[in-house]
């Protein structure tokens, strides 16, 4: 227990060595808390649903509506807070599906390195990696009906191959190590080797990549939503708010600028946090 605490303390120290990681942590915590308590925090949470009030439409930021209102008279601040949920949900779901899938595919291929199975699995991975990810995601989202669910699906489909590659690299290099050979000799089955031997060794690079990926998932999701392929009206989504707002630049700048700044802040937060976390693991390696 004490050693764990010691390790935690050490990790925190490495993390906090770069002050900017703490900024990231603060932003991420704030975003998560806002998302979780959105109905309580948002001044007008009902503005995130089917709501119109033309009397207050297109209002510049004022004391009643801190960040102004959109064309339907909905409070931008409330809608920004409301959009955090789907934004976070997307990255959580995308990563929690693509990481295990990628890990399993990659480690199986790595374990059987040199076999036909390896070739097939990794070539399939290569094929997925051979199209720019946003192009593929958009094509998939286009074939399906536009919705948040389908945009998550599309992003997941293009995301797992990266983890497959990562896991493949680690697994194929570990395969020849003595303890794996020993485990094989003592009759360990494939699942044992994958989850007991490969997994612990993959955790730090995978975790590092994951924290850095959250930002990219959010950007990709926002891009899809910008194109109208994400969350559908009247529910708020950051990309969609920007694409609607563009038409009202520069007069009603608040409709575009605040969502844009929100995206930047969230992604910045996760990137900084990711850098901090990768610092923990990188220094451990040294």
């Amino acid at each position, binding site marked *: 227990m004490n050693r764990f605490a010691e390790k935690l303390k050490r990790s925190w120290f490495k993390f906090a060595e770069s002050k900017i990681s703490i900024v990231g942590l603060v932003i991420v915590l704030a975003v998560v808390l806002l998302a979780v308590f959105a109905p309580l925090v948002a001044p007008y949470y009902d503005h995130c649903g089917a709501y119109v009030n033309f009397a207050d439409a297109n209002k510049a930021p004022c004391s009643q509506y801190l960040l102004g209102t959109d064309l339907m008279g909905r409070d931008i601040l409330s809608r920004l807070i409301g959009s955090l949920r789907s934004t976070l949900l997307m990255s959580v779901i995308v990563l929690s599906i693509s990481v295990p899938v990628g890990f399993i595919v990659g480690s199986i291929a790595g374990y059987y390195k040199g076999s036909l199975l390896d070739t097939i699995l990794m070539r399939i991975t290569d094929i997925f990696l051979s199209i720019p990810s946003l192009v593929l995601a958009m094509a998939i989202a286009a074939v399906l009906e536009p919705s948040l669910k389908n945009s998550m699906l599309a992003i997941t489909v293009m995301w797992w191959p990266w983890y497959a590659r990562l896991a493949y690299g680690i697994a194929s290099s570990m395969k020849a190590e003595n303890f794996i050979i020993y485990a094989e000799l003592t009759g360990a089955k494939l699942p044992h080797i994958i989850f007991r031997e490969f997994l612990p060794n993959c955790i730090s690079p995978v975790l590092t990549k994951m924290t850095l990926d959250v930002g990219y998932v959010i950007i990709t999701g926002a891009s899809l939503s910008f194109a109208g392929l994400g969350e559908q*009206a009247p529910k708020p989504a950051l990309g969609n708010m920007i694409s609607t707002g563009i038409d009202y630049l520069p*007069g009603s700048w608040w409709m575009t600028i605040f969502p844009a700044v929100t995206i930047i802040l969230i992604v910045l937060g996760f990137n900084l946090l990711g850098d901090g976390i990768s610092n923990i693991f990188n220094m451990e390696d040294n």
Partner: protein
Amino acid sequence: MKRKMVWFLAVVLLLSCLTGCGGGPEETAAGTSGESASSGGTQAQGLVRTTFTRMPKIDPATGSDVAASASILNMYDSLVYPTSDGNVEPNIATEWTTSEDGLVWEFKIRDDVTFHSGNPLTAEDVAYSMNRLLTIGQGYSFLFTGIVEKAEAVDATTFRITCSKTYGPLLSALVRLYIVDSKLLAENYESGSYGEFGDYGMNYLLSHDAGSGAYCLTEVQQDISISGTRFEDYWKEFDPNSPEGFIFYASNEGVTVKAMMSRQELEISDQYQSAENIAEIAAMDGIEMVTNTTGQMVSLWVNNQKKPTDDPHFRKALGYLMDYASLCEVVLPGSIQNNSVISPVLLGSVEMYDFSYNLDKAKEELALSKYADSYQNEEIEIVWDSATPDREKVALMFQAAAQQVGLNVKVVQHPWATIVELASSVESSPNLTVLSLTPQCSDAGIQLNTLLHSGTPTWEKMSWVENDQIDAAIDEALAIIDTEERVAAYQAIQEDLKEICPMIPLVQSPERLCYQASYMEFNPTIPLQGYSFVLRDMRVYPERRAN
């Protein structure tokens, strides 16, 4: 070192492979001319540039929407020409006669008209144009399909139409017969499914015009713009200040339109801009707004065959869920509530409804419907055209109101092409669609027919009334030659429609177009789709432009 040289060459080779896969040298570089943007040189001086929501179809046999109509009517001449009071006047046809039974019409064709190609325009071309339109069966063909039995040239200057049945609005409909150059097209047939006519020149007309109109097409940039110049040999006189040419852009993103208007890179802004943007543009220096009451109405097309909108009471309930006051004041400013299923400017339209924003009434109607117990479980889809941002407000407003009575509404946006695709079958047509419709001809019966008759092939019948009695009544009314009698028949049909409530009319909204008043005159008067953009009637004074 030799080795480095080899590598360098390899990189260059690969790079050129990369760039080389786009088009051979025979293509002209896209965007080398005609493209807009930046501070436009002297070349832009006499132009009229405007935006549409989509790429216009410039083939008279396929185009029928606003963008297409506006483009076609400037490049082609129609047989007869509409007037601002809803009548027609001679154009290519100088005079016409009707047989006793009203089945045979003969038109005298002008002999002094030449096409852009230099070919003279003859009655042959007129007959060819009608037959081509009917054969291809798209665009405005629905105005004549099933009516015109035979179109022929009696001699070089006489064109004869033989109808299979009497058809009252024929003259009004002939406004939409645009005459194409048959000889030119014959030279440009490609293989296709029209027998001796090959593809009927359809591929050629994707990027060329074959008309005799006041303007000739100079360039088509797919999905970007079409542009053209004045046809100096036009048979009518040009005012010296008529525009020297035009560019019609195929997209109307608000921010672009605003920026271009403010920089005088666009002469007229389109009417599909949101109310906020129109207000912003109209307030710019030297820009004024003109409204043209084209009879455009914004309505909810309701799928009469799909659950749960297949119940008349249910449909009526929807009429009470719309906040008409906000619609007219905020969402579509300048509009007035429309209580008629067809455009109120048309002679013979009847005030059928007395809808108001009334949630209690809506609940009453819902209680009367067969979904009284189950409507909370149904999901209704409301679709809007993604190029028209104001309609989203309509949809969202409706959704918010519907939520209050417990109706579950899903708002969906589609591009126009998809909406047309959806409209092609009962199954795919959404419950509700917010769209606008401008009269294509100045006869109420034509609009009744396109909206409600089960035989209509176009998207306008998205309501799928599919009612034999109404079909018969419309057919009957259209056959009446006498205008007064016909109008009375139209009114009778609308009285019968009250109970059915086939669609929910929302407002009649004028076209609100902003233009560069500091250096142009623009005064559209003809209340027909596309006729706000008759270039020949506009005036441009380049010397008055700032700098």
